[in-house]
């Protein structure tokens, strides 16, 4: 197989990445789940920030977490802070429909690596996976 410039979107390079989708909206969960499967990933999907934190406390780790901002029980800001405080090194990408610069800044300051406005697009996912694969290469070379 020849990998072109879009290696990040190759199923072959993505299949070992572990991904968690955190969103309280069933429509968004289904959408993001299928978007990620389109890129060869098999995401785990949970409904709120507390479930994400609970998974981490049980010892589960993820390469990538897609974190919604507004959720009941524990929102994305709280969950991101909690995960970083517990030492999570996952790439955490905020996904929010609240797009004002101040709201996204507040979410970023909780410990996100990136923040995107909903809806996610294939280009955004491609960018995220490129960043993940670059980080993975850096870790291998160090």
């Amino acid at each position, binding site marked *: 197989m020849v990998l072109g410039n879009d290696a990040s979107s190759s199923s072959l390079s993505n299949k070992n990445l572990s991904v968690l989708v955190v969103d309280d*909206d*069933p*429509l*968004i969960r*289904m*959408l993001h789940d*299928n*978007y990620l499967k*389109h890129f060869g990933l098999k995401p785990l999907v949970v409904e709120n920030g507390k479930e994400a934190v609970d998974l981490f406390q049980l010892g589960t780790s993820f390469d990538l977490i897609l974190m919604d901002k*507004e959720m009941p029980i524990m929102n994305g800001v709280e969950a991101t802070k909690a995960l970083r405080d517990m030492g999570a090194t996952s790439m955490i990408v905020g996904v929010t*429909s*609240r797009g004002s610069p101040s709201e996204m800044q507040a979410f970023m300051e909780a410990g996100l690596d990136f923040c995107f406005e*909903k*809806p996610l*697009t*294939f280009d955004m996912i491609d960018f995220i996976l490129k960043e993940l694969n670059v980080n993975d290469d850096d870790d291998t070379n160090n």
Partner: protein
Amino acid sequence: MDRNRLQHQAASMRRSLFDQGYLDEPFIQLEELQDDASPNFVQEIVTLFYTDSARLIQNIEHALNSRPIDFDKLDDYMHQFKGSSSSIGAKMVTNECTVFREYCSAENAEGCIRSFQQVKQDYAILRRKLEVYLQMVRQAAVSQKA
């Protein structure tokens, strides 16, 4: 009706949904996710959208009829509606949700009520057109297999 004509009709309907501003890019992504493994993906997502929308419209109506109006709660519901609308590419509905939220932010009850009527109208039209379009797509697919 023969397959080519059905496909042509479906394509024409699809084009008009985009040209008239009812749909935009995210809907194209939904279509790209539909394949042999998920042959009804678009219909499933759209059905979820209808369910989500019905619940949120009811919540918004209830909140608008309450006195005093809780504008924070209203904004929260409309934020959710805007989120799911934009995620499936329901452009016209999404834009009107934004207008509503501006009235909400200004605590303008009359503006919210007017805007909400427009949201419901845009949503009802979109739903009707999508149902017709997806039925055409299904008929064309069935005709192809025959």
